[in-house]
């Protein structure tokens, strides 16, 4: 099947020359938008820039906007897209660097700020694991499958309006640790969570739920986190 691809082109060295380039590419059944980008780079325009690595939805490199929705290019089969012209843009809300590659530094900085590691001053048992029930593990299991692709944060209108907002990905990570029965770090994380750029910026718009390629519902976990903070603090 042959389709037309409109691809956003940008170079931070020449920011005024941003534009779309159009390519016609033939694909076979099962081929993905990532396959198309690879083909364009191989045989149409070697200067096209995008990030990619695992090509099966686990590394989180190739999140981008495809026909207006944040998706992983590697998981998006061309035949699932109804239109004959497919528009590919970089993730919105982040500063573009070149073409489809954006500056992810602020995204990672927010992740760092919520102390994304187990906090527990008690020594763990020697030569044994800490016990955790299957039920308690299940509370965080889905959240631990986050691949940090940035699709959720980039889809969030609250984040578009407030670039200092932690965003759903960082809050999901906070949930993953706060609700881990082995962690006791809520109080240390409170200053980051309970402020005007923290939890309360989530207005349950729920774009993040649609954007997540791992079928996580960040809004739900953020709500649990809000309740927990209220219980703890007020």
């Amino acid at each position, binding site marked *: 099947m042959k389709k037309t691809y409109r691809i956003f082109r940008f*170079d*931070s*060295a020449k920011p005024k020359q941003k534009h779309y380039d159009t390519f016609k590419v033939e694909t076979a059944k*099962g081929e993905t938008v990532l396959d198309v980008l*690879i083909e364009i*780079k*191989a*045989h149409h*325009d*070697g*200067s096209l*820039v*995008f*990030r*990619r*690595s*695992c*090509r*099966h*939805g*686990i*590394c*989180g*490199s190739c999140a981008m906007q495809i026909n207006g929705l944040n998706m992983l290019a590697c*998981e998006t*089969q061309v035949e699932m897209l109804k239109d004959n012209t497919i528009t590919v843009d970089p993730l919105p809300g982040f500063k573009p*660097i*070149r073409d489809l*590659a954006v500056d*992810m530094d602020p995204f*990672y900085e927010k*992740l*760092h700020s919520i*102390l*994304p*590691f*187990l906090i527990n001053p008690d020594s*763990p048992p020697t*030569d*044994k*694991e*800490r*016990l*955790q*029930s*299957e039920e308690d*593990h299940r509370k*965080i*299991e889905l959240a*631990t*499958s*986050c*691949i*940090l692709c940035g699709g959720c944060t980039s889809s969030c209108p609250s984040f578009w309006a407030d670039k200092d907002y932690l965003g759903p990905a960082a809050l999901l990570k906070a949930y*993953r*640790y706060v609700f*881990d029965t*082995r*962690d006791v770090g809520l109080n240390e994380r409170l200053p980051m969570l309970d402020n005007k750029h923290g939890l309360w910026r989530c207005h349950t718009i729920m774009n993040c739920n649609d954007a997540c390629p791992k079928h996580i519902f960040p809004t739900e976990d953020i709500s649990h986190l809000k309740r927990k903070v209220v219980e703890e603090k007020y």
Partner: protein
Amino acid sequence: MITHQHEAVIIGAGLAGMRAAIEVAKTGQDCAVLSKIFPSRSHSSAAQGGTGASLGNLDDDNWEFHMFDTVKGSDYLGDQDAAEILAKEAPEVIYELEHMGAPFSRTPEGKIAQRKFGGHTLNFGEKPALRACYAADYTGHVLLHTLFEQCIKYGIRFYAEFQVVHLIVKDNVCRGVVAWDVRHGGLHLFRAKATMFATGGYGRAFRITTNAHANTGDGLNLVMRTGLPLEDMEFVQFHPTGIYRNGILMTEGARGEGAYLLNKDGERFMKRYAPTLMELGPRDLVARSIQTEINKGRGCQTEEQKKQGIPGDHVYLDLTHLGEARLREVLPQIFELARNFAGVDPAKEPTPIQPTAHYSMGGIPVTINGEVIYNADNDSVRGLYAAGECACISVHGANRLGCNSTLDATLNGRRTGRTIAKHLPDLIYEELPDDEPEKAEIEMDWYFKADGSENVADIRNELQDTMMQNCAIFRKGEELKTQLDIVRELQERYQNIGLQDKSQAFNTEVMEAMELGHLLAFSEVIVYGALERKESRGAHSRTDYPDRDDKNWLKHTLAYREPDGKIRLEFKPVVITRFQPKERKY
């Protein structure tokens, strides 16, 4: 050229690199990690089924069984001192990951859950062991993120999207590396007292592979170019179950949970090849069995192949009897992958699969403490280290067992980090030879001026297709000779590549060209070793030499690139302690 100085510089931010970095940082010494992609993008995240350790949470396991299985799985080419360390230290390494916060699945008692995996047995081969510690089928992913988060905790300095261009080794002393800042452009010199490679495997030399686009074996060629050897490069593992046509991994954990392999007659054909362990045989054996079924006309056909009377070229992985609820609970990723990339509902129909290039047993030769060696006497290069898939200790020998790779990476990453931490007080910032950093400038210049007529993607495709044809599961002298000529011809053509993108910032076209140079260089070593090794052992199966030959070939190969560009082999004895080689049956 901007100069940085760090006591330890680690290249690669997968399980091995980050685990080592934590060990160095814990001692308060300065450590930086360079990675050509963001740490959380590293391919360790694609490991699915589990990490082996004889915790015995669900059966009566012990480390000796694990060691025996690893040695037998290696077809007796694995060094047994390394296998003993792997099996003995595994439980401690797993508990430590759990203490760091790794979210393992749990048993009803709340302990770390464990499942069956290929080639792992109780009582020296009696029956399958529950040894693979898992987090559903996202084990590598959760371990990678746990270690990344620990690196954040320890404040480890990352240089993300830095591609190493040149390694500076002179007189068997390592002095640092030169790297290209992918995002902004420009060369950076990293002077270091200790330099460690943890750059992963070389599966991208093959068309059908589980490996990420990033797995181009850069570290191996960077090391080899300095005159240092690579070990056992002829051993490339084909994972039995990759999704048909794209090679994406379907974890062995699927068979650990009870999935069947079926041929076109719906027969569980493994009964012919591994009557005791069936689908849970070791990977080399299962991959060969699948290929044999296909070669004998018992492969499954697509509708199109049926119509046109073309013989089938894949088999089925049947998960249907496990039921959707169980699949969603313990194999959620497999469930998604089958739907997204094979177009089947694995709860209702079997998934078409084929063997896929997966793991690189060969690599940079190291001691059991992670020091890179420069000869068969185990003499080591000062200040140079390696661990994980890019290294060859050799613990996996001729064939790695499933769930031993994430273990190897974390366990030997930790050991190597400890070695570095111990050595650092006695190491210094060595002098830089005058002409060395400039070599990187000359190389980058070459890429930016490349305006020949050859296309990088075309050369890469030809390499991957022909490696798949001539140097994959079954190998033959004539085909290997042909492949050696093909690789050398592609190397010639590579000299005449043309690149369009002349920008300094985020020039991924130049990066891909550089990676292709590495692929072409070490692929020649794979084929050369495969041609020289006139026996069948583990993943290296020669139809013209079908038997294992312990008399002549129970030894490791060390391949050197001579100054004139030719490859020269030396040999290194296998370390045998507890288990004498014997016939390998499952």
